[in-house]
């Protein structure tokens, strides 16, 4: 009998759930479909172009860096696609394609692969790429823009009149779009800023699928709203929640598994701290990039938060119900 048996000999446990990283990554992409669709609705072929550039750059960077770092054997986990799509969504359609490429290469290549690959990166790759793109833009992108001008390409002419972000409008004291319109769909700013509702639908999907918990998004949004309420009143507080990168940041960037705390308690601390920082940026420093910088700064504190919020082991917490007094029990059984 035993000659024809090829028995698998592995350590316990011998059962597995259906959870897997690839599926989770594809779920994030599914969650980002509604916002991508609204962006395409508003910006048309230009949005499609930007997304395509970032996805292609992300996949090529992933393959290239893995080859360079001798990590080619690792299976394609889909995280590069998520990073690429998120980067595309954080830029406006006016952005030159080489800015998108630079941001994506830095996000996927430097922030993720050079840091040791998926799981080892300390900073959210998409935000790291996005912020690098912005910083480099002011440093030498003007020169790049001149050099690459002949190569510049946009599939369709851009109507620049409607591009100012609501948050900038808010700062300038200009007339703002109606609240309901801003929530459902409003053309302006980056691709991901066009519809908080679409972002929320995707966020709910991730929550239902068990990929994210409510703690981080809710604590960020609640903190931002509360600070807005205190400093600027209810009307503007709502704008603070709906405008800019807050929604995509709170729902998709701050909830990134690798770069956020692992316990609900840590998540709330992380979220509240991000919310406070965002409002410090928005109220006192710069009207843009507040969300991105705040999340990146808190990313650095995640190991510390995990340590500080370390929960007691089962049976370690003193307050839990213990044995009744020995006096109530008949004693006297020798060992």
């Amino acid at each position, binding site marked *: *009998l035993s000659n024809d048996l090829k028995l698998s000999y*592995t350590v316990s*446990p*011998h*059962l*597995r759930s259906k959870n897997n990283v690839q599926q*989770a990554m594809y779920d994030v992409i599914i969650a980002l479909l509604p916002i991508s669709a609204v962006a395409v609705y508003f910006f048309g072929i230009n949005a499609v172009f930007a997304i395509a550039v970032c996805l292609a750059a992300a996949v090529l960077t992933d393959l290239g860096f893995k080859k360079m770092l001798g990590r080619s054997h690792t299976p394609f986990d889909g995280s590069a696609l998520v990073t690429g799509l998120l980067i595309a969504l954080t830029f406006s359609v006016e952005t030159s394609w080489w800015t998108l490429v630079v941001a994506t290469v830095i996000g996927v290549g430097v922030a993720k692969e050079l840091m040791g690959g998926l799981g080892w990166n300390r900073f959210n790759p998409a935000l790291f790429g996005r912020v690098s793109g912005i910083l480099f833009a002011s440093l030498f992108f003007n020169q790049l823009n001149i050099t690459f001008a002949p190569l510049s390409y946009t599939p369709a002419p851009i109507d620049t009149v409607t591009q100012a972000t609501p948050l900038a409008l808010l700062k300038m004291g200009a007339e703002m779009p109606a609240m309901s319109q801003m929530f459902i769909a409003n053309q302006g700013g980056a691709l991901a800023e066009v519809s908080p509702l679409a972002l929320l639908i995707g966020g709910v999907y991730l929550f239902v699928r068990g990929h994210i918990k409510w703690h981080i998004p809710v604590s960020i949004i609640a903190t931002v709203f509360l600070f807005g309420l205190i400093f600027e009143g209810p009307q503007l507080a709502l704008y603070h929640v709906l405008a800019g990168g807050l929604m995509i940041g709170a729902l998709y960037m701050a909830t990134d598994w690798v770069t956020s705390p692992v316990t609900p308690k840590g998540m709330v601390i992380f979220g509240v701290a991000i919310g406070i920082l965002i409002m410090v940026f928005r109220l006192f420093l710069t009207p843009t990039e507040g969300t991105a910088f705040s999340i990146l700064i808190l990313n650095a504190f995640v190991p510390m938060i995990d340590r500080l919020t370390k929960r007691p082991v089962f049976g370690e917490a003193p307050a839990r119900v213990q044995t009744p007094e020995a006096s109530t029990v008949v004693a006297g*059984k*020798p060992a």
Partner: protein
Amino acid sequence: VTVKSFDRGVFLPHYKEFSENEPITTISLPSEVVIPLQQHIGAPCSAVVKVGDRVKTGQKIGDSEAFVSAAVFASVDGTVVAIEPRPSFTGAKVESVVIEVAPEQEEPKWADRDVTQLSNDQIKQAIKDAGIVGMGGAAFPTHVKLSPPKPIDAIIINACECEPFLTCDHRLSVEMTEELVEGARLIQKLVNADKLYFGVETNKPDAIEALNSKVEGEDSIEVIALDVKYPQGSEKQLIKAVLNREVPPGKLPLDVGVVVHNVGTAVAVYEACRYEKPLYERVLTLTGDGAAKPCNVKVPIGTPIGHVIEQCGGFKDFTGAEGEVFNGKVIMGGPMTGFAQDNLDVPVVKGTSGILIFSEEMLVKNEHMPCVRCARCVDHCPMYLYPNSISVNAERGLYREAVEWGAMDCFECGICVYVCPSNRPIVHLVRETKVKANAAK
């Protein structure tokens, strides 16, 4: 009915349908039984027979002077043909008594005592003489557990059977309810506990009903319906669910006034006290999607698992014809904590609750990815540990850090590996950490 539970843990597919309605049966004897001299936690036994001796069913063949040990018995009539190291279910070789089974078997004759007349000393002696150990898998000598150095106010009979697939405790609860309850009463009397609880998961309504009908109207006995959640049958989680007491790290249930015993153990205690019958056979479940005829069988200790499989219909869709290969897995114990086997000569021991046969579809892959900190293991860990940090640190040889994140409090239930989207070998890394940490002491 209120259903009690513990925090965290995970809902697993039950897979009980294969064998839960199969009454306990018996199988024919093998030609040879291999009885390891150590089937328990504690000191190994020394053989008290020698090669060439004729032995009878129930005859003591191994014993030890040590307190923490349990005697072993011949499970058949036959002749001792060897006393030598033989492979055991853990993969290690264990000194074993090999008995050639005699063609004619005599029906063993047992005493018939009135268990209500037994003194505590007599009960304890009967348990020790019968070599009873915890039959849920841990195989800790029962007489040691029943000599607690501290007062005990509650006995919990563990009828959870929280591991998927296994149904032998379920069948015992339904078919031998009387023996189970009487055995539990003996245990309760022995440690002088005020309360006796039966903890049963709600996916065994017939067991709950059977137990309730036996103990109705008794204030000191209660049947507790428990959530079907893994690892409900782990001692600490069971005590938490039933009594809302937490056993501190490094402590034992008796430190919170509780002793937990498995269903099979309670039945064995009853049989030891009434019939003076030693523990030389046990009920186990042979099941799995690769088993031709899943069943619950009473098997003599020492029976090679290959014989049990063969007698129970063998492998599903596998005839053993020329060129045919069975790609699958054979596991001793449950699917979450059991041991995979590559040698079917390994014998059934006192702690063997099941033999699982998995088809190729149930096999798990070996490849794993880095930890992505999804925190599913942290969410589900019933000991509130950080399996993510344990595995990441242990993988890089940082065992001290792995200990800081709780490796030593892990009882290797396997949930973290089950839920891990990266298929990380966390249990393996925990074991590695324990070995390194103990060596460093």
